[in-house]
Structure formats: C-alpha cells, structure tokens
C-alpha cells in the first residue's frame, strides 16, 4: 500500500514538469504561435536554474533564473516569428538545436555535479494523514502551483476579457486587428509567458526532480509537452490530466523494474515515447475533434496591413 502512495507522489512530481511546460505552450498556441523550441528552452533554463542554485543556494532564485532564461529565449523566437515572419517550425527548431548546443557548451563545467540533499516539503496536518499524506500532501510547492495554474488558465481563457482577446488573436488575428488590438504585441506577450513557464519546468526538473546536470537531460520532455497540448485538444484541465498520465508512465518503468519484471530496462525507457506516439495517433484520428478546438490561425504568421 505504501509503495503505491509513493508511486502516486512520484507521478505527481514527474507530471508537474510536463504540466508546467505544456500549460506554457498552451498559452503560446492559444495566441496562434507554435513553439518547437521548448526542448532547447527547457535545457537552457535547467542549466540556468542549476548554476544559480549552486552559486546562491536558493531554490527560488533558481526557479527565477530558469524563468528568466526561458523568457529571454522565447523573446528571440517571438521577434523572429512575429516581426520577421519567419516560418514558425523552422525558427522553433533552430531554438531547440541552439539550446541543445548552448546548454551542453555552457554546462560542461557542471557535468555530474550534484545539488545537496533538499529538505522535504510537507503540508502541516494534511501531510500526516496516513497513505493520502505521503501520496498527495508532501510535494514541492510548485506541484500545487501547477494545479493552480491550470485552474487559473481555465478562468483566464474562458472567463476573462484578456483571455478572450488572447484567443481571438489565435483564432482570427485579422478581426482582432480590425477591432484595434495590437495583435503582434499580444502574441509576443503570450510567447514570452509561455517561454517562462517552459523555463520554470526546466528549472523544476533539475532543482527538484533530478538534481544533477547531464547534457541533454531534458530527454524529450519538451517535445512530449508539445504533444500534450494536442492530446488535450488545447484544454488546460486535460493538459494537467495528460501530464500526470505521462508522469505515471515514466514512473511505471521504475516501478516495473522495482517489482522485478523481466524486461530489458531499455524497453521500459522507451515507454513514455511510445505512449506519446500511441496517444497522439489515437487523438488525431478524429480530425473533427482536433479542428474544433485548435486555434484556427495556429502556425500562421500575421501581417497587419497586407
């Protein structure tokens, strides 16, 4: 029983990385911009977070550094795709390739360096409930922040005025422009906000999840987060659910190893990626379903006055 509580706790922990990044990407995409640079952003943000924590000892400064790095990289992408009308796929890819190279380059001094043991968080009283306590209430505060963020986004996107403007920019930038909204600046703000959340996800990954810098340590989570927005058909609550599902798949491999299932570890390590492919295929099968929720101008540049 207790091992299941720990499995749930670990699932939430692993899922939070994906949830933070995917919610960020959702904001981007709702404004009509695809960010294929997520993987590179997360890598650089993880490094920025790691270096900051090593030198200052403060986790929170580490998270801030990750967010700043993410925002900065996303801003570069934003200028390219929003003002210079660069192909969004190509520019995002460039960001991922650059981020991979740059983080490997800049992080070489920190390879295999470890962060000291972190204190465990626990919510008073709730954390002491048997089974439920260890499963749900002894998590890092950011786990709850991710949940709150999803709730906030549901309210923001569908209940607030600014959210309506953001969605209209993603659906029909022409109309939003005609109504007098500054489409490019709104898109830029969404890209930077999304990038900073990807950055937070990267920093969370290294500060809380695996406190050890290894080249390429994000290991495709940025891409999985991108896939998550499609699985979730651009709904924040479903993003959260999908993230935990994938966190669970990641944890399952360790659990199966732990209970001595006779499968080569490499096949277990493939699980999250194969699961991504399978779910992506299942969800995409119904074009009506995807198209009903996808921001109509996703991936399309907008030129005012053309």
């Amino acid at each position: 029983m207790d091992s299941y509580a720990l499995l749930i706790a670990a699932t939430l922990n692993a899922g939070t990385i994906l949830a933070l990044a995917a919610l960020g990407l959702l904001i981007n995409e709702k404004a009509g911009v695809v960010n294929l640079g997520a993987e590179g952003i997360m890598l650089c943000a993880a490094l920025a977070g790691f270096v900051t924590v090593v030198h200052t000892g403060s986790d929170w400064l580490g998270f801030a550094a990750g967010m700043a790095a993410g925002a900065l990289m996303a801003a570069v992408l934003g200028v390219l795709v929003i003002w210079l009308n660069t192909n969004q796929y190509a520019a995002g890819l460039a960001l991922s390739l650059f981020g991979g190279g740059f983080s490997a380059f800049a992080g070489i001094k920190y390879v295999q360096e470890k962060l000291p043991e972190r204190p465990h968080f626990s919510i008073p009283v709730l954390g002491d409930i048997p089974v439920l306590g260890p499963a749900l209430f002894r998590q890092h505060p950011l786990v709850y922040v991710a949940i709150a963020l999803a709730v906030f986004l549901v309210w923001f996107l569908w209940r607030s005025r600014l959210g309506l403007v953001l969605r209209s920019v993603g659906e029909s930038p022409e109309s939003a422009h005609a109504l007098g909204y500054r489409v490019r600046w709104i898109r830029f703000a969404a890209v930077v906000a999304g990038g900073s959340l990807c950055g937070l996800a990267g920093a969370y990954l290294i500060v809380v999840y695996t406190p050890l810098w290894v080249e390429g340590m994000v290991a495709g989570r940025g891409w999985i987060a991108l896939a998550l927005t499609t699985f979730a058909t651009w709904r924040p609550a479903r993003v959260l659910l999908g993230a935990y599902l994938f966190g669970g798949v990641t944890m399952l491999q360790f659990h199966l190893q732990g209970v001595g299932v006779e499968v080569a570890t490499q096949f277990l390590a493939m699980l999250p990626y194969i699961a991504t492919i399978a779910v992506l295929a299942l969800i995409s099968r119904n074009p009506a379903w995807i198209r009903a929720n996808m921001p109509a101008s996703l991936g399309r540049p907008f030129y005012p006055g053309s």
Partner: protein
Amino acid sequence: MIRLEVRPETSRFWSIGSPVLALLLTVLIGVVLFTALGKDPVRALQVFFWEPVKSGYAIGELAVKATPLLLIALGLAVCFRSNVWNIGAEGQFIVGAIVAGGVALLAGKDTGRWIVVAILLAGVVGGMAWASVTAALRDRFNANEILVSLMLVYVAEQLLYYLVVGPWKDPGGYNFPQTRSFEAVTQIPRLFTGSRVSIGLLLALAGAAALWVFLFRTRAGFAQQVGGLAPAAARYAGFSSRRALWLALLVSGGAAGLAGALEVAGPIGQLTPYVPAGYGFAAIIVAFVGRLHPVGMVLSAILMSVFYIGGELAQSRLGLPKSLTGVFQGLLLFTLLACDTLIAYRVRFGRAA
C-alpha cells in the same frame, strides 16, 4: 523606427546574400564568444575555420563528415519541399546503422566483397522502415509527423543501446557496451589510400545530381513540390498528397539509413552507443542553409563539416568544449532565418508614410 516593407519581387541578391550574411554574423558572434571565454579570437577562428581546410588530409576528413550530412539533407529537402516535417532523421540514421550493423555481423572470414552491397541496402531498408512508421501514422491517423518522428529518435536510441548491451554485445569486449568489430571485408571501399574518404562521397554526390534532376526536370518531382506550396492546386491537378507524404518519408528515411550504414561499416566499424552523432539534426540545418537546393546543400554540408572538425580541434587545441559545434550550428540557422527576411522584405528607416 525600423519597418519592413514587402518587396514587389523576392530579391535574387539576398537569396544568395542571406546565407553569406548569416555566416558573417555567426562568425562575429563567435568572436564575441571566444573573447568572453578569454581565448584569442584570431587564433580561435584560425583553428575553427582555417585548420579544417588547410591540408589534403584535412580536406579528406572534411569530406568524411560532409558525406552523411549531405546524404541526410538531400532526403530532408524532398520532405521540406513537400511540406512534410520529418525531424526524426537521427532515428532513421540509427536504425539504418543497426540493420546494416546486423548484416555486417553476419560476415565471416571468407565472406565475399558483395557483403558491402548487402550492408548498404540493409541500411536503406532500415531507415525506410523507421520512416514508414511516421508515414503510416500520419497517413492513417493524421498524427503530427514532427512529434512522431522525433519520439522515434528516442526509441531508436534505446533500441541501439539494448542491442549493444544485450544480444549483440561483444563477449570479448571487457564488458563495454559494443558489438565486436566488423570483419575487414565489410569495410566500405575507400577512394584513396591515406584518407578515410569512401565511396559514400560518390553516392552522396550522385544523390545530389539525382535530386536535381528529380526536382527540376521530372513531372513527379514537380507534383511532389506543388503539394507543399499550394495544396489546393495540387488537389485540383490530381496530385495525391498521400503519395507525396510516403515518397518524401521513404526517400528521406532511405537516405538517412544509407548514411547510417556508411558510418558503421566505414569510420566506426562496430555498433556502439556513440553511433548517433547528431548528424540527423545537423542535416536539418544543412538543408535549410543550402536552401533545399542540391548545389546549395553540397556547399552547406561542407560548411557544417567545418564546424564539426573545427569543434574537435577547438577541443584539443584550445581546451574548449566540443559542443561549441552545436552552438555554431544553431546560431547559423538562427541568423539565416533572420537574414532571410531580407529576401521578401525591404528594411525602411523612419515612420510609415
């Protein structure tokens, strides 16, 4: 205030000038980077850009690295021109290498030279098979090919790792994760003595020529590209988008697989976890910097190869990390995309009239 103004016609000057300007900007940023690292920038640039081309041997090494990059980029150009975003060439390269390596392991002391042909074909088949997973899922389920092909890279890496620590592990390899070294007969024939350049280079150049003929001189090549530029027009003309998807992925998968076969049966000579060297990702940059044009890609493959060798030299001579290569590659693609704006737009200073 800086504004962009749409040009009445795209600029021919800047379509050639933009890659040159992008390279200059990349070098400039490189100078800043080297200075920031406390290295003499002149010396660093010399190591990075001059040493890789200064001797016959160096140029041979350049060709060794440029071969897989060019082969993979040629296939990717077919994809990108038909608006199929195959980002998983790295995975197709790995599986090509695995299947080719499997055939190479079958060779014994008295196997004939025909085995080389079998190895190369095996690589092509392996790469095609891996790419066809992406094609099938896109075709049948409309699954996004960017994400599927990318996820398959991670799966391919694990598959390779499984084989070299598991069933194909060299029993006499002191527990290293690797297969035994392939028999000498499996070695891809070399062009010159004293250089590692193999017939792979000829295959890649022939591929570039074939791509040129296909894209610009055949109806099939035309049909392939119309779907990418104007899907509605392609439908109206009766060009099948499914056919274009499959063709693009099979060609690029086959090319990447061939590159994988040439690597394992050439310079590497066995399967190890270090077979994936990022060529599949670097080839994306080669394809874009080469403007998806066969001649352009030959040049950009050579350039990217300079980056690879320059990175290795920077490591041994200047004590800089080898990953500097990745930084320069990423920077080049970035600056190129930014400079490409000049092809379709004119920069104007001052307020709008």
